[in-house]
């Protein structure tokens, strides 16, 4: 049953009334009127009459001409497409009879513009039943919000890529078909998948979504600057203290005292804090990061969290840490422009940084710094990234196609391609044995650091990361807290306490409104 927009109906009625109201000019009887006794009563009748007679027409008219077809996939609503409209990447047209599915993703740049369309094209060419159409939806946050917005209007894709921290909310919204259903049905073998990665997306004993792209942050440094500052480029800093000392040595000032090269630059990105917290061996939320039982409060304001922000702030105050705001792109540009010697960034940007630094300086990569040496054995980085979800309000045929696509992208060959195009880890160990992948790691030894870091991380509640429904909110709250500390508005403890309180409130409200008890 479609809804009839009642005001459109009103509009049509009104216009029909206006037109009829103008009618009498054609019939020259203005002065003959008085004799007709019932005339004045017609006024109110006239206003109603068209309504009564035209109502059925009016209700249909807008529907036929304007109302969108809700059953069609979102792309079909664009009825008035001019012929010039060409999407960013070209996707080969669907074969006749193939089920078309939409795939929302958040991969910008070349990864989204080239790698994803190519993957989709290969999938479409590999079989006749399904046709996948990738649509870039902006950041993960944008994509999640749009998905939530689309749930009521059924404006949803069959498969969507969402970041790790959306996991709890996706499950609680009950809008997904867990991939576990298909795994069980088809006895699909997942033993080759990276255990740490599987552990992240397994909630209540079920794998809810299929990991797609995984990454974690590592230290990138400028080897040339290390040499110039008298540091050993083969021995990058491992602990917070070493990092701070190196940053001080790498910082350069001109005659007037103005800093020309900063030792380090961290973008104000909540993800970095989460990772530093995990390698420090601390939880983000209670109930073992919300993994034993759903979380009820934020606990990131412990001594480990405070230590991270204190360390960060000390370097900023010492003038060895550069602050270019929240956008990581500014940090990367400063690094590539050799205005800063060390940055923390995702393994996924490795290829971009390698290309950008080529011919300018030698790029080094190392493990994410930890508070002390002992932390290297206790914990590790969180294995997050993003995964693919099947949305359950799509027709069964679309969901089946979504699963086919998910299996396709998880194949070793596709994962190896994905790995070399982006720098995201393959989710499957077999991908490392693909010729393409072997060639890539041989060419860029820097990537070995990333793989080592992944395999060095023990699989425990720290490295599985927090699991809460309000994680996007929490991440933003942490970013605000970091800014408060860096801006000198609060001490690390004050800022984190305030943030923890706010996140706890959000968790409580979430649990209440979602009926989690």
């Amino acid at each position, binding site marked *: 049953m479609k809804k009839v927009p*009642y*005001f459109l109906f*009103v*509009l049509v009625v*009104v*216009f029909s*009334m*206006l037109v*009829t*109201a103008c*009618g*009498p*000019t054609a019939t020259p009887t*203005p002065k003959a*009127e*008085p004799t007709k*006794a019932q*005339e*004045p*009563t*017609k*006024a*109110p009748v*006239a206003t109603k009459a068209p309504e009564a007679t035209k109502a059925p027409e009016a209700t249909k008219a807008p529907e036929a001409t304007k109302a969108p077809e809700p059953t069609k996939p979102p792309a079909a609503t664009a009825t008035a497409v001019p012929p010039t409209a060409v999407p960013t990447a070209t996707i080969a047209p669907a074969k006749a009879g193939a089920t078309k599915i939409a795939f929302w993703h958040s991969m910008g740049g070349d990864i989204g513009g080239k790698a994803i369309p190519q993957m989709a094209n290969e999938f479409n060419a590999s079989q006749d039943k399904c046709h996948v159409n990738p649509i870039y939806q902006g950041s993960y*946050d944008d994509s999640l*919000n749009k998905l*939530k*917005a689309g749930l*009521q209007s059924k404006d949803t894709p069959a498969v969507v890529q969402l970041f790790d921290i959306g996991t709890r*909310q996706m499950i609680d*919204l009950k809008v997904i078909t867990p991939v576990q259903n298909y795994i069980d049905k088809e006895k699909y073998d997942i033993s080759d998948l990276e255990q740490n990665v599987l552990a992240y997306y397994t909630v209540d004993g079920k794998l809810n979504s299929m990991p797609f792209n995984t990454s974690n942050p590592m230290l990138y440094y400028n080897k040339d600057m290390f040499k110039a500052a008298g540091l050993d480029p083969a021995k990058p800093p491992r602990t917070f203290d070493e990092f701070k000392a190196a940053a001080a040595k790498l910082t350069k000032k001109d005659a007037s005292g103005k800093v020309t090269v900063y030792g380090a630059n961290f973008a*104000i990105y909540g993800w970095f804090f989460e990772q530093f917290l995990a390698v420090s061996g601390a939880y983000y939320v209670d109930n073992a990061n919300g993994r034993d039982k759903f979380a009820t409060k934020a606990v990131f304001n412990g001594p480990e969290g405070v230590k991270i922000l204190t360390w960060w702030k000390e370097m900023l105050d010492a003038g060895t840490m550069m*602050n*270019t*705001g*929240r956008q990581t792109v*500014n940090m990367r*540009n*400063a690094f590539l*422009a050799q*205005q800063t010697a060390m940055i923390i960034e995702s393994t996924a940007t490795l290829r971009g940084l390698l290309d950008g630094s080529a011919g300018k300086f030698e790029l080094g990569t190392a493990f994410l710094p930890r508070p002390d040496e002992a932390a290297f054995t206790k914990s590790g980085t969180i294995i997050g990234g993003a995964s693919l979800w099947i949305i359950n309000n799509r027709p069964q045929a679309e969901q089946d196609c979504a699963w086919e696509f998910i299996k396709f992208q998880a194949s070793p060959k596709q994962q190896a391609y994905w790995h070399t195009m982006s720098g995201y880890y393959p989710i499957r160990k077999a991908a490392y044995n693909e010729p393409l992948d072997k060639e890539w790691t041989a060419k860029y030894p820097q990537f070995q650091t990333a793989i080592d870091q992944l395999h060095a991380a023990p699989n425990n509640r720290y490295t599985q990361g927090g699991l809460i*429904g*309000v994680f*996007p*909110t929490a991440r933003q709250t942490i*970013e*605000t807290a970091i*800014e*408060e500390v*860096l*801006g000198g*508005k609060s001490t690390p403890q004050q800022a984190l306490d305030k943030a923890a309180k*706010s996140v706890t*409130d*959000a968790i409580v*409200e*979430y649990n*209440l*409104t*979602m009926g989690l008890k």
Partner: protein
Amino acid sequence: MASSVPSLPATKRFGLTSVQQREARNFLSALLYMAPSLALFITFVFIPLVRSFVLSTYLTDPIGRPAAFVWFLQYQRLFNTDVFLNSLLRSTQFVLYTVPITILLSLGLALLGNLRLPRIAIYRIMFSVTIAVSGATASLMFMYLYHPTVGSLNYFLELLKLPAVPWLVSDKTALFSVAMVSVWLQMGLNTVILLAAMQGIPEEIYESAMIDGANSWQKFWNITLPFLSSTFFFLLVVDMLASFQTFTPIHVMTSGGPADSTNLLVFSIYREFYFNGKYGYAAAQSIMLFLIMLILTIFQFVFVERKVYYE
């Protein structure tokens, strides 16, 4: 049909006098003309306003479905957490940055544009071109000007031997930096309106002032400004309302940061419902925004308008 009948005799029908009949007819035909607008206003302004209020008395789940009726809890939360108070404070600060600077700069530009010189029309177009510029494009342009490592504003400061400013990066300067984008955007309209008002000042007044030996400053102070007072009032209202509703530059440039220093009211509403899924809480904020605007408008009409000069 009856609505077009020009006149009716003075006989009584259905207990109505002809005057009453004509009134009824006029009313109906007027209603007919207003109907499209009214239908849209009712659907998209008045009913939603009521629904905003209703929504503000609920807790909702993350996709906006009411979960629990909570009376005025959301309003209580507004005033108990410093997020809303901070937004309120920041919005006020933002208005105080933008409105006076906009009006002063526009006055300057309008005075220049009002000079009687050949080809002045070109300058007038330059001064008012920002009318045609959108918030999104302006924000992107300024983002590059403010850029922490390659921005040209810091380059100009360096040329002038002034220290670099951390425009959007520091919580101390970000609000001002965003305010300047708003000033720039609003300046076009302000200049145009002031210019038109200046051209409406009768020439004879200046001439008689000249005969009395008034200098340019006296003419400006004693004639131009008083004559512009009602225009200033108009601009004050328009600019304040626009400034309180600023959203685009925040969304494009700062996302409310650093440290919530640019988390203006409208952005906060957007963030709370669209991003954080707190529909009820955001609705309470939007009702507060409505009340503030209402009070401001009434206050201005009652207290400020009295003092302005009318022709």
